[in-house]
């Protein structure tokens, strides 16, 4: 994973089930971006349309890169479309990709980190997932619904007017248990301040890791879902070699079950924070700003994925601390 070029076009990925309110949100984005050139790639029919905006209807097409490994899949249709769009003189200011309710968000995200041609031209801003607060309960059994929540940076809990406050609170807790880093908003008609979903820079490593404090405060998480988040906050310094070895093995063996991870580390012998993120097996890390004198040096990591409990993440990470058992 390599950070995309600075002048590249920001990309918003919009996921959610059909009927959740994606199209309403998309039309709000287009109205808001009026005057800018926005290209929209849609994978299912909807009433999209603002004058002068380009809407491209594409069939989603998954390309393997490594004999079928799911971590190394990309979206061939996006590579082709983005490559072609960027040839034009009047390039686009913003690209919005609307996925179908049944799409796996991972190949979309991986495309922006794996394909060098796309990487130099476009950069992911955020994955925005619209959840139908009234009907999501019918979809908990579906992998797609869980994955769309797990991969999200921003979650719109839409149609809140159709459910009770108690139901909403329960829903928020359940979603928070799956994804500890997404920002959750309650909306009606997908009405939301645009700066909450655009210009989020969620994939920018320089951005602070924001773990919901409530998630950290809750002592006992109900991990009854197969998809869940685990957040680790540990004082101390990390042995860089041990960490490398652990993460390497973890991603190799359990990559398909780890959807996303983010972290800030205090590495032994380093004056700067080390920041990293991952999507399945893809890993990207670099040195960040120096630790401030008044700052308590610590390590914060968040994993979002499937069957995380059995991976023994906390114990394994502690073993990477200087002085930790190995």
């Amino acid at each position, binding site marked *: 994973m390599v950070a995309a070029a600075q002048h590249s076009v920001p990309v918003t990925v919009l996921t959610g089930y059909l009927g959740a309110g994606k199209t309403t949100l998309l039309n709000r984005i287009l109205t808001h971006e009026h005057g800018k050139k926005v290209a929209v790639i849609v994978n299912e029919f909807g009433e999209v349309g603002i004058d002068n905006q380009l809407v491209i*209807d594409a*069939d989603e*097409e*998954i*390309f*393997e*890169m*490594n*004999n079928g490994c799911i971590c*190394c899949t*990309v979206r*061939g*249709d996006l590579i*082709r479309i983005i490559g*072609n769009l960027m*040839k*034009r*003189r009047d390039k686009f200011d913003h690209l919005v990709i609307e996925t179908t309710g049944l799409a796996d968000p991972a190949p979309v995200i991986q495309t922006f980190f794996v*394909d*060098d*041609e796309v990487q*130099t031209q476009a950069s992911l801003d955020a994955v925005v997932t619209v959840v139908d607060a009234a009907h999501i309960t019918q979809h908990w059994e579906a992998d797609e619904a869980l994955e769309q929540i797990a991969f999200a940076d921003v979650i719109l809990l839409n149609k809140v007017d159709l459910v009770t406050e108690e139901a909403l609170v329960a829903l928020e807790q359940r979603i928070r248990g799956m994804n500890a880093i997404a920002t959750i908003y309650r909306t009606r008609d997908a009405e939301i301040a645009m700066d909450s979903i655009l210009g989020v820079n969620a994939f920018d490593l320089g951005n602070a890791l924001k773990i919901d404090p409530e998630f950290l405060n809750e002592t006992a998480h109900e991990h009854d879902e197969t998809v869940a988040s685990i957040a680790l906050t540990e004082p101390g310094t990390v042995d860089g070699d041990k960490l490398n070895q652990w993460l390497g093995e973890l991603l190799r063996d359990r990559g398909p079950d780890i959807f996303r991870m983010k972290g800030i580390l205090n590495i032994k012998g380093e004056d700067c924070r080390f920041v990293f993120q991952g999507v399945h097996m893809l890993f990207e890390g670099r040195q960040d700003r120096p630790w401030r004198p008044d700052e308590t040096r610590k390590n914060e990591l968040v994993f979002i994925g499937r069957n995380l409990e059995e991976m023994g993440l906390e114990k394994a990470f502690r073993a990477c601390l200087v002085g930790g058992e190995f």
Partner: protein
Amino acid sequence: MPKPLLNLTWQTLLADYVTALAWSPDGSRLAGCSAAGEVVVFDARTGASMALQDKQGLSVDAIAFSADGKFLAAAGQAGTVSIWQMAADSAELSAKLLTQLENPRVWVDCLRWHPYQPELAFNLGRYVQVWDAVEQSVIATPAFETSSVLDLAWHPSGDYLTLSGNLSVKTWRRDDGYNAPEIRETGGASGAIAISPDGQYLASGNNDRTLLVWEWDNPYPWQMQGFPAKVRQLAWSTVQPQGGSPLLAAACADGVVVWAKAKDADERWTSHVLDLHSAPVTAVAFQPQSTLLATAAEDSWVCLWQQSTQAAQILEGAADGFSTLAWSPQGKYLATGGCGGEVMVWGKVMTGKGFG
């Protein structure tokens, strides 16, 4: 740097990014198309031009002359495949629009004429249509099925049509009505294929950072690894400088790797890297009947590599980068296209020594 090999003969400007350039077989005419949707024919010597299609908003991405030079085909994001009949007099630039094949909601970005018949193959999503330009009828529609068709190539013998896509390269025989294809597996998606002009080798550039080369009659490929990114462009030389095998140039990110087969019994392929470019390489092409290699890149340089090894000249003139290039079939001219719409034709410097 040695004495220049090429001088600028003429130049002009299209409205947007030059997506493709193609020479007529006799080298008298050059055709170009752009991201603004223009299709223009130029006189090779003077640069005099005739617009066959004005800008129309949607990009035209592919353009090619038929083997006999009678037809010019172009296609792009509108899904329309247009075929013009060229005037018999090669000094005449005008052309008559013969056929327009509409394919709504499909981007046609790849078209190739049969090496000697007036038969045009072009991609339509997951399949290819082979069109008879004289009879004006569909000959066949071989289906790649498993993914969109990413590239296509005719075997120089004219007996086979090869398509590439996700996880494989498939070859159909022309004489059995494009029946069951022969399938060659690739580790990832094959985005570029090229068959050597002698018909001996098939190369596939893949998104898993490998290059595969098959002998035409051998199902087991050589696999070339070590590329930093996907292999985007391929070109074979027409000449065979070493042990009877042509050279293969493969572009990947900012670099170009040139492969040659060793003469010894191991039949290994050896390579060297040409790394002068500082931005992605957009096109590579060998001068016909020579080992002079031209490489175009987004860094605003076209580099000429003597014997595919030594940088001999750098051509400039497209400030936003070069997007494509094409040698005239006789090797007399090099046409280069720019990201800002520049079309430039370069000719041999007459006073210098020979080429290659």
